[in-house]
């Protein structure tokens, strides 16, 4: 059995709400109260207008695959028994992009433009990692 621990994010004061929300099964982004721009990952202040009035916006968690790769070599010992696995850049419908694994689909079936929705993989009591899975065909 592979007992290697997945590299875990360590939240900062600024990013803690993102990870707290993830542990509750919610995907949130910063939205500037002054100029309404979304930004991700979370930052100290708005990159567009420098305002500090940042609010948390709850994403629909729906998006599409901008691009992806299928790793046949593990990036760390934890992933060794997971190859081949998909790492993608997902464009959320709100316009924000993030990197995440695409799961619950054979890697060879993944395509650019595929519609996906967020799910969360609990890695510890406090950290859940956002991942994406295909939307069922309508």
């Amino acid at each position, binding site marked *: 059995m592979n007992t290697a621990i*997945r*590299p*875990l*994010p*360590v*939240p*900062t004061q600024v*990013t803690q709400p993102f990870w707290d929300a993830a542990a509750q099964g919610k995907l949130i982004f910063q939205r500037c109260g002054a100029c309404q721009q979304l930004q*991700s*990952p979370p930052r100290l202040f708005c990159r567009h207008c420098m305002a500090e009035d940042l609010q948390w916006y709850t994403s629909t968690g729906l998006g599409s695959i*901008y*691009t*992806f*790769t*299928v*790793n*046949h*070599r*593990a*990036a*760390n010992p*934890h*992933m060794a028994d*997971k190859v*081949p*696995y998909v*790492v*993608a*850049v997902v464009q959320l419908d709100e316009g*924000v*992009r*993030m*990197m*995440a*694994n695409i799961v619950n689909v054979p*890697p060879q079936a993944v*395509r*650019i*433009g595929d519609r996906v929705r967020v799910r969360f993989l609990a*890695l510890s009591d406090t950290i859940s*990692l956002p991942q994406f899975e295909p939307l069922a065909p309508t």
Partner: protein
Amino acid sequence: MTSSHHLSSSIAIAGVAESDLGRVPDKTALELQAQAAQRALVDAGLTLRDVDGVFAHTDDRFSSLQLSEYLGLKPRHVDSSNVGGMSNIMHVRHAMAAINAGFCEVALITYGSTQLSDGSRNLTGLVEDPRSPRGQFIVPHGQLSPIGYYAMVAQLHMHRYGSTPADLAEIAVAARQWANLNPKAYRRGDLTLDDVMASPVVAAPLRGRDCCLVTDGGGALIVTSAARARTLPKEPVYVKGIAESFSHHYTPLDIDDWLDTHVAETANEAFAMAGVTRGDIDVVQIYDHFTIGVLQSLEELGFCARGEGKDFVKGGRLAPGGAFPINTSGGGLSYGHPGMFGIFLVIEAVRQLRGECGERQIANAQHALCHAPGLVFSANTTMILGTAA
């Protein structure tokens, strides 16, 4: 935007050299830098006493001071800045500023690495502060770095333009054919399109032979004012145009189009500064960390239209005897790649312009273009060299 056109041909490259290359287990990265520096000074007809600026780049954070101590130099100006593989070309631009400002007159630019003998490879993910943006939002997903990013670029190119793994293989095969003409190349011998496409997938759609080598090696450049260069034994190679752009670290989530990574801007600025056009370029050296990087750069540099790269590289057009010869040393794919390749692009370009390349010489070469990114299309530099000021 202010213009730097008045600095065109204000400096020249007077000396170039590699250290021992390939597998060099008996020397350190610092020793390889020193060895390359000695050889480049001999090539320039200068001595250590002439050097008053040091621009060094290794894994040591204080590399210019480390090298200065080792060589007994007391420079007036140093620079250890690091933006990845293009860093030493950035140092040429920094030297242009420093020399024109009077901060130094003779700049020694070096690189050295024992990546092969150390057995390290950045392919499997760097150790990163788990609080950093990369540590929180990239590393946990198991992204291979840097290959994963370029595999994503390749996936996007194939989706948008219909390019194929066979198109990428053309680039690896052309590099090997150039390496077969270069006695210093680390990987020589036959390589076919089928060999490339039969190599194991690392990060789909990229395969092992789509990736640069891992070798040991160092390099050095001697850069000085154009006036000083004209007093030296070899013909100066002038820096006619040079431009840079920068954006992100390892989190390229704000790059709107991963096939439009600000290369066109650096290329256009460098061409405008140099006062030449793409048609004037005889020698092209493009950073080939991965085959897709070459395809991406050819299109973004404007040597072919977006999406036409797949046809542009077909049928050996980049290879010896082809219509568009590039990376005549054999490149990072077959000549060698000790971690950061930028300085080796410049060394080969200078030798081509001097007519020193023997079997792989491009006839009557007068203008050369070097293009390199840093990290994962995080930074770009385009430099145009010429035999006439």
